């Protein structure tokens, strides 16, 4: 399955999904190198960001918070992927193509 969004930070990487959808989740549950999937980002997700090998968000544009942090971290990021939280679940293997804004599930 191909999911289309907007490429916000370049690079291609494959990994296991880790979904963050509330502010009380514990970053200790996330392994280094997982693909961070979220509706949108806030500074509260810092500990998740630094473990991620790529970031996918359901909302936002190429200047959004997640996109900017992904570029700082030099990891791929695809934003504005419609209904991503409903289409993937934790530990799904996905490939993030930040160059073209595509997610392969």
């Amino acid at each position, binding site marked *: 399955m191909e999911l289309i969004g907007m490429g916000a930070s370049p690079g291609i990487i494959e990994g296991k999904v880790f979904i963050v959808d*509330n502010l009380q989740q514990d970053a200790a549950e996330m392994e280094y190198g997982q693909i961070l999937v979220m509706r949108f980002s806030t*500074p509260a997700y*810092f500990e998740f960001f630094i473990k991620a090998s790529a970031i996918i968000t359901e909302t936002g544009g190429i200047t959004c*918070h997640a996109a900017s*942090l992904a570029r*700082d971290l030099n990891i791929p990021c695809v934003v504005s992927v419609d209904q991503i939280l409903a289409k993937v679940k934790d530990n799904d293997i996905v490939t993030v193509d930040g160059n073209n804004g595509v997610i392969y599930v």
Partner: protein
Amino acid sequence: MSEQVDKFIEVMALNLEVRSRLPATDVWPNPLADITLANDISGNHILGLLEEIFESIDKIEQIAKIFKRPARLVYLMYLFTLKPSNTEMASRRVRLAEKMISAISFMRNGDPFIEKGQNRIYNDNAIFDLVHFERNLTIDHLTTLRKILVALATLNEYSYFAWVGLGREFHGLYEYNGMKLFVRDYYDLNPDFWDYKKGFAY
């Protein structure tokens, strides 16, 4: 004023209600960080404080020391979108704006509006120190440096919400021995108005 306070409380209550809901479906930045709302609530008061500071301190070097970086003053110039209530207030604000621009100009080495396309704040000595430090870094440090950069940006957002210009200044380009430097400067990440930071080591 009471209407504005009512508005502030209404927005804050709504915001807290939304923020307390899980899963988080609200937006960032926090609506309370809207600078125009802050203008409505306390803009005139802040302008009064700025007038006091600029009236009581003659030396521009001291002003620069208080505000630390020009972006802070630039941010505060949003306050001038407030309409003065009479001509006397209008002329006071013009005087204040002129002084603020003078201070910005001093901090930006004579180019307050960055018309030359470069925001130069550091002098040659500071650039020398920076370059000397950077030369000790290797490619192995890059990943850690990137994480530190994200940590600094995040802490800045926690400290100042959407007013991120109050805690950071991006400046440059500087040239040194054929190199070009752009500085992302987070200079005040422990403001004393946040209790939770009192235990921080820095």
